[in-house]
C-alpha cells in the first residue's frame, strides 16, 4: 500500500485540486482532500508515469487527460518499481542523481571522444572513401583543378619532350604501385606555390615546373610521384575531407549551443585533430614511396635529397603555407632512413 498527497488537474481547467492517493498495487484511489471532487478509481495499466528528472515534481497521466502531480518522489518511484515502469529512464535518472556517476559519465565522455576521434572517425572515413563512386571523385577533382588553375596555377612552360618522358615513367610507376586506378600526370607553372606536387582523388597528379627544375635527376621526381600515387591509392584526399567534417560534427555535437559564442575556441581542437590526421597520411605515403624505391633498388637517397632541397627552396615562395601540411622535413628524412635500415635486403 503506497499513500501520498498530490494535486489533481482534470485537464479541462487550470484549477488545482488537492488530493490524497492510495495505490494498492493495481488501482489508484484518488480522493479530494477538500470537498468531494475528485473521487475516482483508475487502474494503473491505464496511467502513464512521467519519467523522473532531478528533484522535479512527479506527474502521473490519468485516462481522459487528467493528471496528478506530487512532490512525494519516493512514493512515485516505489510505484514505478512495483509496476516495472520506466526502467530505461530510471537508470538514466540514477546516473544523473549522483556526483560519482556524473564524474564517471564525464570520464566516459572524454574516453569516448578520444577513442572516436583516434579510431572511429578514421575507420568510418576509410570505409566511406572507398565507397565514393568514381564519377563523384572525377567531378570533385575537376572542380578543384578549375579553382586552382584560376587562382594559383599557370600553363606549364616545360619542353614537350621532357613532359612526354616524365609521363611515360609515371605511367609505369603508377601501374606498379596501384594498377586499379586511372592515373594522369599534368604540369603547371606556379610562381605562387613553388616546387610542389599534389594529387587529386581522381588520380590526377599535378607537378609544378619549379619542382621539375629543382630536381637533379628523374629518380627524385619519381620518388615524389610515388608519394602522390600512394595518396590516391589510399584515398587520403577523400578520407581527410570526410574526417574533417566528422571532427566538425563531433565538436558541434559536444559544444551544442556554445559554438556561436566561442567558435574560435571550438575550432582550435578541430585544427589540431586535422593536422594530426594529415601528418599520419603523409607518413603513410612516404612509407609506400620508400618501399617502392627500395624495391626498385634505387634506395631512399633521391627522395631525401629532393625533400631537403624543396624545404630550402620553399621559403622564397609566398604561397608556401598553402600546402604546408607536411611534417617537418627532418622527421621525414629520419623516417626514410629508418625504413631503409630496417630492410634486410637493402644493400
Amino acid at each position: 500500500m503506497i499513500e501520498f498527497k498530490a494535486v489533481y488537474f482534470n485537464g479541462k481547467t487550470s484549477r488545482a485540486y488537492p488530493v490524497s492517493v492510495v495505490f494498492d498495487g493495481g488501482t489508484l484511489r484518488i480522493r479530494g482532500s477538500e470537498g468531494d471532487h475528485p473521487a475516482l478509481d483508475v487502474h494503473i495499466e491505464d496511467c502513464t508515469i512521467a519519467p523522473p528528472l532531478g528533484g522535479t515534481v512527479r506527474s502521473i497521466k490519468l485516462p481522459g487527460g487528467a493528471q496528478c502531480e506530487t512532490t512525494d518522489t519516493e512514493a512515485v518511484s516505489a510505484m514505478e518499481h512495483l509496476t516495472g515502469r520506466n526502467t530505461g529512464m530510471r537508470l538514466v535518472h540514477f546516473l544523473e542523481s549522483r556526483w560519482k556517476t556524473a564524474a564517471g559519465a564525464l570520464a566516459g565522455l572524454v574516453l569516448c571522444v578520444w577513442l572516436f576521434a583516434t579510431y572511429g572517425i578514421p575507420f568510418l572515413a576509410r570505409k566511406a572513401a572507398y565507397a565514393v563512386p568514381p564519377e563523384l571523385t572525377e567531378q570533385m577533382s575537376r572542380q578543384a583543378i578549375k579553382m586552382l588553375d584560376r587562382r594559383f596555377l599557370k600553363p606549364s612552360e616545360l619542353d614537350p619532350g621532357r613532359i612526354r618522358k616524365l609521363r611515360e615513367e609515371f605511367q609505369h610507376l603508377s601501374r606498379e604501385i596501384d594498377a586499379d586506378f586511372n592515373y594522369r600526370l599534368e604540369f603547371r607553372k606556379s610562381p605562387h606555390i613553388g616546387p610542389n606536387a599534389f594529387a587529386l582523388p581522381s588520380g590526377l597528379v599535378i607537378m609544378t615546373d619549379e619542382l621539375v627544375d629543382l630536381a637533379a635527376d628523374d629518380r627524385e621526381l619519381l620518388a615524389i610521384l610515388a608519394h602522390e600515387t600512394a595518396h590516391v591509392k589510399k584515398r587520403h584526399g577523400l578520407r581527410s575531407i570526410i574526417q574533417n567534417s566528422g571532427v566538425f560534427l563531433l565538436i558541434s555535437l559536444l559544444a551544442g549551443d556554445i559554438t556561436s559564442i566561442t567558435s574560435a575556441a571550438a575550432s582550435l581542437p578541430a585544427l589540431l585533430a586535422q593536422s594530426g590526421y594529415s601528418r599520419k597520411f603523409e607518413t603513410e605515403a612516404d612509407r609506400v614511396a620508400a618501399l617502392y624505391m627500395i624495391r626498385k633498388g634505387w634506395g631512399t637517397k633521391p627522395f631525401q635529397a629532393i625533400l631537403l632541397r624543396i624545404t630550402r627552396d620553399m621559403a622564397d615562395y609566398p604561397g608556401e603555407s598553402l600546402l604546408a601540411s607536411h611534417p617537418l622535413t627532418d622527421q621525414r628524412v629520419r623516417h626514410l632512413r629508418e625504413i631503409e635500415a630496417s630492410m634486410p635486403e637493402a644493400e
Partner: protein
Amino acid sequence: MTYLVCRNCGFSASERDVEDGLAVCPECNVDLKAEHPRGRDDTCRDAPFSRQEIPLRSAPRRIKPVFAGSAGEYFRIWIVNTFLMILTLGLYAPWAKVRERRFFYRHTVVDGRTFDYTAPPVAILKGYLIVGGGISLYYLAKVYNPLYSLLVFGIFSLVLPFLIYKSLRFFARHSAYRNIPFHFRGTVGESYRTYLLYPLLIPFTLGLIIPYWAFRRKKYFFGNIAFGTTANIFKGSARQFYKLYGIVAVMLTGVVVLFTVMILSFAPLIVTPEDVTFNTAMIFFFFAVYFTSLVVPAFIQQYIYAWTTNYCWGHSGLGNVRFQSTLKAGRLFWIRITNILAIIFSVGLLIPWAKVRRIRYIVDNVTVIADQGLDDFTAGLRPDESAYGDAATDFFDIEIGL
C-alpha cells in the same frame, strides 16, 4: 483608464496603447478609433478561442515566478546527456533535448505550480532524421558542385517558413502549465510573409524594413500563442521597434566614430617604425579593436533582447492576466561576458552553470499580474502535431521568444 473595444472580436486596448500607434485591432483590422461600442459582439471569428482581454481590477495580485533548479543538478543531467549522446552516436539527442527542456520547465514555478514539456522523444527523433538528411544533402551538394548547394539552399529557404510554423505548433502543443497545453494559432501564410517575404524585401527597401520585420517575427509568436482556449493578445506596434532600431543605429554610429578616433590617434604612433612605443602601441591598438569588435555586438544583441522581451511581455494580455518583464541590458551583457569567460576557462564544464544563471535572471525579472488566481483557464481541443518542425528549431536556433 478607458478601453477601446474591437466590435468584431472583443479585443480591447487602452487609450495609451492607441496613442502608441495601435490604430486597428491586431486580429480583425477594425479601426479602433472609429465607432467603438463598449459592448461585445460575440461573432468572433476564432470560435474556440476566447479573444477577450479582460481589464484588470484596481488591485490585482502580483505573482513572482521562481526558478528552482540548481546548477549542480543540471550539470549532472547535462553530462549524462552528453555522454549518452556520444555513446549512441547522436541517437539519444531527442531524449537529451526533452530532458533538458523538461528540467528548465519543471523548475519554473508560477504561483506554486510548474510548467511541463511533454514532447515524445521518438517524434523528435523523426524530425532530427528528416532535417539532418536535408543538411547532409546540402553539404554533399556543396562538395559535388557549389552550384547545386545554392539550389538546395533555395529549396530550403522555401521550406523554412513551413518548418517554423510546424515547430511553433509542436512546441506550444507540448508545453503545458497545470495540465493545460498551449496552442499556436498562427497560419502558414503569415509564416511565409514573416520569414520569406519580408527578408526578401530588405535589399529593395535599403534595410528600412528590418525593424518592421523584427516586429512581425515577435508578433507571429506573441500574437498567436494561446494558453488552452485563451488567446494571448499582443498590442505591440511597429513604431516602437523603429524607435529601438533607431537607438541601435545611434549606438553603431557612436562606435564607428570611436573607431575612427582610435585609428587617427594611433596612426602616427604605428607609422614611426623605429620608435620604442611602436610595438606596445600597436599591440594595444589591435587589442582595443579586437575587444571592441567582440564586445559591442554582444552588448547590442543583449540590448535588443532585453528591450524586445520587456516590450512583448508588457504588451501581452492573456485573459485577465498581464505580464511585466524588467530585464536590464547591462546586467544581461555582464552575464553573457562572464559566462563566455567561465565556459572557455573551464573547457566547457561550466556550460550548465552559465545556462542556469542566465535563465534564473530572466525568470526573476518576470512578474505575472493576475486579477484573481490562475484557476480559470480552459483546455479545449488537442490536435496532434508531427515533430519535424521541432528539429528545425533546434538546428537553426530560431529564438521563440521565451
